[in-house]
């Protein structure tokens, strides 16, 4: 076959590769000549937004990424955090938004596959997964199709791979009608002395290709992911990769087996931009050149061109640098697992990235410049406009019981059981808290008492109203959800989903959110150790809600002290820890306003980070002392929804009549931040509870006794009692009815 490597590089060809004219000029200046066709493909793969972070890098650098427990921050396949006893947790969250919209089953499945690979590439065995999903309006024509495909795709991959899905989020909003979000999280466990990195070391060593064969799927995927959608999206279906969880499972076992032999010097999975990105990263990080011989690459289709091989995003593939004397041993491991093993190149000392094909050199580029010289933009941005507070008397009225039933049975709060029952939530036998609570919790396998907690959080409507406060809130809520189980929050991963950064108002959202995230992470000692940025989430010029998803990880030293959201018994005192003096007042941006009155005006509730931290630390102490019997943080729907969720989870009612004499609506449905519902088994008339209140008061924390558990109804103030069974029926009803088209 003939391959036209030296073709004229026209402005149209450059534009088709997602490169701007000035970016192309920079390439020509860097290499001192016109690039070949293969080289143009390589540059487009390395310099797109997805791989280069060119719009966000300047701002990402401001995030706190260090801490006493952080072993590896951003820059590797995943972050690594010390959990004591020579063990570490490895985790990251990553988006697969565009592919999942075009082809939901494969898009979401390969998103899951990609993040699992990021974790085991570092030598860790995956032990937990989560996913944060955002779909268009429930009544949009595509929504049910997308929900069903995405959920089945994630389940199809994670279940077969064998990792429990322990948490996540599902939200609906018309702003995701043309661009859904699929953010997948995975965490693994590794011994701290057996962590593997991508930096190649040593000259003349074999570069080995492992795993599945290379096909034409996903060619140009990363470039596609870095552009807006238009009306031609169905034409982009071939850029979506096809997942094979069976191969991924074998690849996991083979990689861990191979790592145990001591043969591996460096390892990098082939994710976005496939062979190109993995080879360049390994070489550039180690200050080495890489020479690849494409004739050795295992292919599953005939007549593949070098361009296609370099840009293919076929899944379940790895690239490694191996100790040459261990090559035979390594090959035997892969033969056992029936996976491809091919030496496709070598490391060199000339800092060039050379690609050979049928005796021809089809690319010869400076390897460091491919990564380091990628454009970095200080894009113009404008600060998002702040909205003014609602007037104090602007409180739309509704019967409290009716409002609660409507919200608990609505699309925002309704149970996600329909979703999470399609995920294997208990495989590996370590799941202590499965989806439905504040955070998922798993035991640390082999340790008598340690457990890890996982949560995923962001409130896009808060971020839309005020990106800075929204960013803060996302971090605070993740920290709060971990705390509510009794865990010490350790660190977080961020998955920043925004629209087109070339528009100053979108760039302003990104900047504001990152500032808020950074401030909260510093105040809560909750560093960001890994992450992913997904921009250009727009269709026909309309952007999504700004959605900086935060994945948080916490450590429980002793899981026997863990608490859940379910009321633990009758006649227990319910405290509202962290309450403001008026119990609750912030209705703007609440779901009460949005879902019952179609109001989206006003600012989101502010987060007082110092108060947040004091309150969380106090709640965690009550849990550790065994005083707290159930804990639930307040978020969407405020106090009323929080109480209802605790009642539904336990089947036990509650009477909460000790509210202030002011309007009950803001008290029950306001979304004031930093609040926890805590039940305690202390005598409300006894000395111990007085001591607890004294301690709280000294810390500046308000913890009023608002009611007690018991009975079969939830009684809120003067509202009519609602049977817990009716709340449960409403809560469980929404999703199945929606998916059945009722």
């Amino acid at each position, binding site marked *: 076959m003939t391959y036209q490597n030296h073709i004229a590089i026209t402005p149209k060809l450059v534009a088709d590769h997602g490169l701007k004219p000035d970016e192309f000029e920079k390439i020509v200046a860097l290499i001192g000549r016109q690039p070949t066709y293969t080289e143009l493909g390589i540059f487009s793969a390395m310099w797109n937004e997805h791989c280069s972070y060119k719009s966000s890098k300047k701002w990402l650098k401001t995030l706190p990424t260090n801490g006493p427990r952080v072993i590896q921050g951003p820059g590797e396949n995943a972050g690594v955090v010390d959990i004591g006893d020579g063990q570490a947790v490895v985790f990251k969250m990553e988006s697969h938004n565009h592919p999942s919209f075009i082809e939901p089953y494969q898009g979401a499945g390969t998103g899951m596959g990609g993040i699992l690979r990021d974790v085991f590439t570092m030598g860790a065995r995956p032990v937990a997964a989560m996913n944060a999903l955002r779909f268009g309006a429930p009544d949009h024509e595509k929504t049910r199709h997308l929900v069903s495909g995405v959920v089945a795709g994630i389940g199809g991959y994670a279940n*077969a791979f064998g990792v429990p899905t322990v948490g996540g989020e599902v939200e609906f909003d018309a702003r995701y009608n043309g661009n859904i979000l699929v953010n997948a999280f995975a965490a693994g466990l590794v011994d701290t002395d057996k962590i593997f990195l991508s930096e190649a070391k040593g000259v003349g060593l074999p570069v080995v290709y492992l795993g599945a064969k290379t096909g034409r799927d996903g060619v140009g995927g990363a470039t596609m992911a870095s552009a807006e959608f238009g009306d031609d999206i169905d034409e982009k279906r071939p850029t979506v990769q096809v997942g094979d969880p069976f191969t991924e*499972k*074998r690849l996991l076992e083979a990689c861990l087996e191979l790592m145990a032999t001591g043969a591996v010097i460096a390892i990098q999975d082939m994710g976005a931009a496939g062979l190109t990105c993995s080879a360049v990263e390994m070489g550039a990080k180690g200050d080495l050149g890489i020479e690849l011989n494409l004739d050795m690459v295992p292919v599953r289709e005939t007549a593949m061109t070098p361009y296609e091989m370099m840009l293919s995003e076929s899944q379940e593939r790895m690239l490694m640098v191996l100790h040459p004397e261990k090559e035979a041993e390594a090959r035997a491991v892969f033969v*056992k697992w029936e996976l491809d093993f091919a030496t496709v190149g070598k490391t060199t000392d000339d800092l060039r990235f050379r690609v050979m094909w049928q005796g021809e050199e089809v690319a010869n580029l400076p390897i460091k410049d491919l990564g380091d010289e990628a454009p970095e933009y200080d894009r113009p941005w404008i600060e998002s406009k702040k909205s003014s507070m609602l007037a104090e008397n602007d409180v739309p009225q509704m019967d409290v019981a009716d409002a609660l039933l409507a919200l608990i049975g609505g699309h925002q709060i309704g149970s996600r059981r329909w979703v999470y*029952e399609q*995920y294997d*939530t208990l495989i590996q*036998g370590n799941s202590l808290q499965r989806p439905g609570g504040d955070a998922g919790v798993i035991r640390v396998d082999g340790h008598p008492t340690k457990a890890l907690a996982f949560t995923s959080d962001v409130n896009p409507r808060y971020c839309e109203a005020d990106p800075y406060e929204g960013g803060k809130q996302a971090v605070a809520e993740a920290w709060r959800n971990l705390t509510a189980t009794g865990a010490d929050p350790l660190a977080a991963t961020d998955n920043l989903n925004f629209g087109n950064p070339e528009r100053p108002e979108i760039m302003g959202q990104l900047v504001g959110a990152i500032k808020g995230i950074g401030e909260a992470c510093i105040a809560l000692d909750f560093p960001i150790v890994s992450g992913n940025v997904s921009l250009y989430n727009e269709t026909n010029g309309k952007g999504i809600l700004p959605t900086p998803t935060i994945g948080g990880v916490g450590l429980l030293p002793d899981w026997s002290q863990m608490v859940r959201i379910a009321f633990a018994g009758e006649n227990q005192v319910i405290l509202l820890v962290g309450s403001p003096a008026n119990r609750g007042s912030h209705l703007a941006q609440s779901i009460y306003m949005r879902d019952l009155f179609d109001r989206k005006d006003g600012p989101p509730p502010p987060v007082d980070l110092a108060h947040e931290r004091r309150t969380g630390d106090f709640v965690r102490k009550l849990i550790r002392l065994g005083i707290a019997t159930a804990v639930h943080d307040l978020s969407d729907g405020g106090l009323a929804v929080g109480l209802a969720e605790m009642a539904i989870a336990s089947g036990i009612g509650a009477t909460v009549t000790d509210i202030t004499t002011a309007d009950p609506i803001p008290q029950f449905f306001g979304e004031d931040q930093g609040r926890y519902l805590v039940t305690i088994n202390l005598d409300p008339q006894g000395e111990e509870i007085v001591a607890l209140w004294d301690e709280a008061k000294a810390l500046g924390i308000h913890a009023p006794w608002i009611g007690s558990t018991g009975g079969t109804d939830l009684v809120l103030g003067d509202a009519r009692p609602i049977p817990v069974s009716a709340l449960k029926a409403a809560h469980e009803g929404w999703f199945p009815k929606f998916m059945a088209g009722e």
Partner: protein
Amino acid sequence: MKSAVIVFPGLNRDRDMIAALTKISGTAPAVVWHQDADLPDVDLIVIPGGFSYGDYLRCGAIAARSPIMDKIRARAEAGVKVLGVCNGFQILIEAGLLPGALMRNMSLKFVCREVKLEVTNAATDFTRGYAQGQIIRCPVAHHDGNYFADSETIARLEGNGQVAFRYAEGTNPNGSINDIAGILNDRKNVLGLMPHPENLIESAHGGTDGRALFSGLLQQVA
């Protein structure tokens, strides 16, 4: 007592099963890779759950035709006990060690939840740890657990005490005929079931109802 867990590529509850057998018996089972030349001399052979060969053909169909299954079939004929859970059950059916078929769940969706099981026949080596008719909790996690057989086979299974477990209290998660969750062979030394008793054996799992299956079995074959 001696047991062996068979591992095919794509199985993923092998570790759960090994942990359960180890925790309950105090002894780790032999772990046998499907291509190993020897199947050790054991009293109990377990095929755990997962997605052997990706379940890309019919579930269990490829593993059922692998050479090690001939050895397992011979052992079963010699009276050795064989337990297949989830994908292991599908493999035993595809290999002809148990009758019937496991079809796609009636919901067409993967389902992971806790169900109730009735111990339909407690007079077997596998179920001796339970009382006849006892209702136990047990999780399921599968996409293809909808048991079906022709009416003659069903009548024979029912008449012969070969239905070991039945979904109870309206919790049938997959549409199985007669609520069948687990069946025995004619000789009652081969049991296949869709639910995962190995995932409910300690307080951390939220219950221990699955334990008696293993403890009863392991005591006898000691």
